């Protein structure tokens, strides 16, 4: 029923909105009125609860208004309205399916409102909304509840992390996923977890555990939700962070505008807001970067998880998931295997079935295979797969794209486990660089250059290249055996050592120059300032301050001189010895100060820059660029096949149109700009206004011009010439005099 017209009498008195306003302004004086309305609310509630399904529209409307009023002032009369939250909860939980839509939304809104007024706590709000969210058949209510749940969780975590609340909700979600593995209800757990992960509200292992359970569910939707979280959740999080930092405020512009424009409270507020935002951003910039681990690293027992996931969804022949979902699951499994270096041997034999060119989206399978390979996988397990790929994909008869993809896939696998290749196969594959197709050539050359570095013996002599041959002869390139690991250390420590020696030598030279100028007081006293990164100026400025940098090494050297047994690390005479031993002993014999660590990082960066500029091989550069967390995608496999292909006209057109303003109809650039300006609510220029001016309005001025005297005309002409000389009215490019 539509709203009935409100009579004049009612407008004056029976206006709940104005009553609410008055109550909020002076709660003590209006206690009586509120009590009346509380009674009215109670009566309406009884009427409604007696038969929620058959309540008349009028009653529902009245109840709706009263619920609204009480919610807005509930915090002012806590004793009187103590039962109110329970009323709402009961109403929502028991009758959400039959409630009128508006009333339902009002009840949800009121609950959120009294939560914001701290009448109830977040836990009780969320535990009320959550069961309704997963059980209601109404789409609109679901989306409303979802939004409210997320916003409440955000709000209660905004100042400090509310660990207790988070734990409660995470447990609820975990239970939701694990209690009934066949139902789609787990979807909500994955959606909520993913959203909060994206917003960096939940960053610990517990939400990952929820997602892990979701991945092991029986329901396809839930499984895919969980899997996609692990595959894309972290990237999403990074993007979100980038987006939020993008919208920067031009503070200069804002300040300038407030000077020019008319002053008003609204504008003043806008300026304040902009300033606040800038401050916040600066604070954010200075704040240490939150140490967020990727979800894949936070998984507890990755081996067990990967095995279960593989057995349940992939190996199981009764599984009827769509190919797309299966591919996503496979991607996750192989990613876990590659990242954590897990051993799931049955995975590789399972792959064999899918490695044929006719298999749908076979490039994804190939990428997954490459992703799931690491240096601890036994070569015996992969070799048959490599042979199979070579047989199925790479032949003279197969299409060039297929061959290119096959060779590239083999290369991707071989990057990770070079021992999987046998000599005849490699020699055969390398010879494809004589092919006519560019993609195949590039792929084969890629394989060749890889093996030149990692295992040149396998290549024929003529394909080895100069460097590899010389390396083999000198014994520099050594073949690494299965499972062999490179002895690790602190990356760049030798750079730091070298740097320190240089500084030491410099200082010695200076001392000799200055004679006995050196003050002993500085030598023996340990300067605590040099521990602090911020106070140390030697990092940013030039060399002469660096003299102080090795003062903290002085005690060590002094001690070393007295004690002949201890290795003299910084002594020049023993430098060649320390160089001979590949491992630097600096880290094991002295404590690195924060200043040292910073210098180390700086030196490392410098070295990397050198590498990137040249010297390092293509493959190494590629490996540097590609972060370990990023997996191999089907695009990587397909890449060489696209080389040397001409793009179609449509593709070129799309490329050209990318990033340009939309041009639905045929319009000039001017017109597009103009309409854009209009849409932004900007005004026209003075020039444009003058051009559009009504003809009749200009008539008077024109007539006046004709009636001018000679002197007046001359004056005007002169002024015109002078103006032109000074570059026009706006003095474009010419100085004013």
């Amino acid at each position: 029923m539509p709203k009935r017209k409100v009579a004049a009498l009612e407008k004056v008195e029976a206006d709940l909105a104005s009553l609410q306003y008055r109550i909020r302004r002076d709660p003590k004086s209006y206690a009586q009125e509120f009590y009346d309305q509380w009674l009215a609310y109670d009566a309406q509630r009884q009427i409604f609860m007696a038969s929620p399904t058959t309540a008349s529209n009028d009653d529902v409307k009245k109840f709706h208004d009263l619920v609204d009023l009480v919610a807005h002032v509930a915090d002012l009369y806590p004793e009187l309205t103590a039962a109110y939250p329970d009323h709402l909860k009961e109403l929502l939980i028991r009758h959400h399916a039959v409630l009128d839509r508006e009333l339902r939304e009002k009840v949800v809104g009121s609950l959120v409102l009294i939560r914001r007024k701290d009448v109830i706590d977040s836990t009780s709000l969320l535990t009320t909304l959550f069961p309704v969210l997963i059980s209601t058949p109404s789409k609109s209510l679901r989306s409303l509840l979802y939004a409210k749940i997320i916003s409440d969780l955000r709000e209660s975590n905004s100042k400090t992390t509310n660990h207790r609340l988070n734990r409660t909700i995470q447990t609820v979600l975990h239970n939701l996923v694990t209690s009934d593995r066949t139902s789609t209800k787990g979807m909500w757990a994955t959606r909520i977890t993913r959203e909060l992960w994206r917003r960096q509200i939940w960053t610990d292992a517990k939400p990952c555990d929820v997602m892990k359970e979701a991945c092991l569910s029986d329901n396809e939707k839930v499984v895919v939700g969980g899997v996609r979280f692990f595959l894309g959740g972290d990237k999403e999080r990074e993007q979100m962070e980038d987006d939020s930092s993008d919208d920067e405020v031009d503070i200069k512009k804002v300040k300038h505008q407030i000077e020019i424009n008319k002053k008003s409270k609204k504008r003043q507020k806008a300026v304040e807001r902009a300033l606040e935002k800038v401050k916040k951003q600066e604070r954010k910039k200075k704040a240490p970067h939150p140490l967020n681990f990727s979800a894949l690293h936070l998984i507890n027992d990755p081996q067990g998880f990967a095995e279960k996931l593989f057995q349940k969804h992939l190996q199981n022949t009764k599984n009827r998931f769509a190919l797309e979902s299966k591919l996503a699951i496979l991607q996750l499994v192989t990613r876990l295997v590659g990242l954590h270096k897990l051993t799931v041997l049955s995975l590789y034999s399972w792959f064999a079935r899918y490695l044929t060119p006719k298999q749908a989206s076979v490039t994804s399978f190939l990428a997954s295979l490459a992703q799931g390979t690491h240096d601890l996988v036994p070569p015996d397990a992969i070799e048959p797969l490599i042979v199979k790929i070579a047989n199925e994909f790479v032949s003279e008869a197969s299409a060039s794209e297929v061959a290119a993809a096959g060779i590239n896939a083999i290369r991707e696998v071989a990057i990770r486990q070079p021992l999987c290749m046998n000599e005849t196969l490699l020699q055969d594959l390398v010879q494809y660089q004589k092919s006519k197709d560019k993609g195949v050539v590039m792929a084969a050359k890629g394989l060749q250059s890889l093996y030149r570095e990692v295992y040149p013996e396998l290549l024929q002599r003529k394909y080895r290249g100069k460097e590899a041959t010389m390396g083999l002869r000198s014994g520099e390139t050594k073949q690494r055996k299965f499972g062999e690991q490179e002895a690790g250390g602190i990356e760049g420590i030798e750079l730091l050592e070298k740097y320190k020696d240089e500084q030491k030598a410099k200082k010695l030279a200076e001392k000799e120059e200055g004679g006995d100028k050196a003050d002993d007081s500085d030598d023996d006293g340990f300067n605590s300032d040099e521990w602090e990164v911020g106070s140390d100026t030697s990092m940013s400025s030039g060399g002469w301050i660096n003299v102080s940098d090795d003062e903290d090494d002085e005690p060590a050297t002094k001690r070393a001189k007295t004690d002949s047994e201890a290795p003299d690390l910084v002594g020049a005479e023993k430098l060649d010895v320390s160089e001979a031993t590949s491992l630097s002993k600096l880290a094991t014999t002295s404590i690195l100060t924060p200043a040292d660590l910073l210098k180390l990082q700086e030196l490392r960066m410098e070295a990397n820059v050198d590498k990137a500029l040249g010297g390092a091989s293509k493959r190494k550069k590629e490996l540097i660029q590609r972060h370990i967390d990023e997996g191999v995608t089907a695009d990587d496999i397909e890449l060489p096949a696209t080389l040397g292909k001409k793009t179609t006209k449509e593709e070129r057109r799309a490329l050209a149109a990318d990033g340009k303003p939309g041009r639905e109809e045929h319009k000039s650039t001017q017109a597009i700009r103009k309409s854009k300006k209009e849409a932004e609510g900007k005004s026209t220029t003075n020039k444009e206004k003058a051009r559009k001016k009504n003809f009749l309005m200009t008539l008077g001025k024109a007539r006046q011009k004709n009636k001018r005297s000679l002197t007046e005309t001359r004056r005007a002409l002169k002024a015109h010439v002078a103006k032109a000389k000074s570059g026009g009215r706006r003095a474009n490019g010419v100085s004013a005099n």
Partner: protein
Amino acid sequence: MGSSNKKKKEKKKDFQKAKLKVGKAKAKAANFTDTSFKSKSIVVNQQTVADEDLDATEQFKQNLSLAVNSKSDNQRRDALAYLTNQISAKPPNNPVGTSGVLTKVLPLVSDSSAAVRTRLLALFRAMPPSEVQPNVEKILMYVRGAMAHLAKDIRNEAVNVLEWLVEVAGDEVVSCPGGWLKTLNSFSSMLGWNPSVGVSMSVKGWTTSIQTTLIVSKRIPEAQARHIQVLAQFLAAGFRAEKPTSYTPQAYWDNIYRLPATPNPFGYLNLFGTPRDEDSEMYPDRASRMRVFDAKWRAAITSGMEGAKKEGGVVGRSAATLDKTLKGSLDEGLSVNICG
């Protein structure tokens, strides 16, 4: 110059023939109606009032629906008048039954039009008391809602309805769930004799403010006197001594084997409803009503009544009636205690 040109063009336009172009759609005619929209439902603005070809039953139902749903005050009023006529006719014509009519028209207790409310009361009075009695709890809910309404007139009218209800079914009113304490709550808030609000908003400082709020300041003595009068009637109904039922030898067997004649005979057990608090509890007998009244309300109502007595005039007179009722209850209570 410009405007005259414009006018000329405009005049010409009427007689120009529209040019047809190849590949372009024909221009729409001036009286073209766009029928491309779709609608899921059609709302009819007017309802038919034709009643020639309707039989009595249909007509009654139509009027019932009009009384509730019509937007026009007059139509609602007229429909209610029709219903009253039909019900009070001899023999009464009521195809939907009293409780059916009640369910529909009860929301009108807080209707915005005064004429409708008056008519509604007339309709109520026309209903047979025996059929009203089972519905007392439901009616009371609406009456209490109206008694707490923001509009003064509606509050006053609600008291009239309550008066009728006490007349027709006094015992049921005071003994149904929530009928005793909740109604007293509503009365006290209407009269401003309210202990619970004072407690909840206890003033911390040493000053006290006189009540200067909406209701109290705009209180009209006549209306207040009426409220007090109806309160007295209500209390009298609550304190009325129960007549001892005469002994019948059949009663014992009836109790065991006969179906109960009253609606909801085991209501006091509250087997299927939500648990009740003190306010919404049933107080089925006089003694229990007296007990909770003494504990919760006697002090507040007595002090309020004393104040009203001092005002004198209409209010004072009705307060005196109330005083009599209260005293009577005390005497009777004593007598009951002495007897028991």
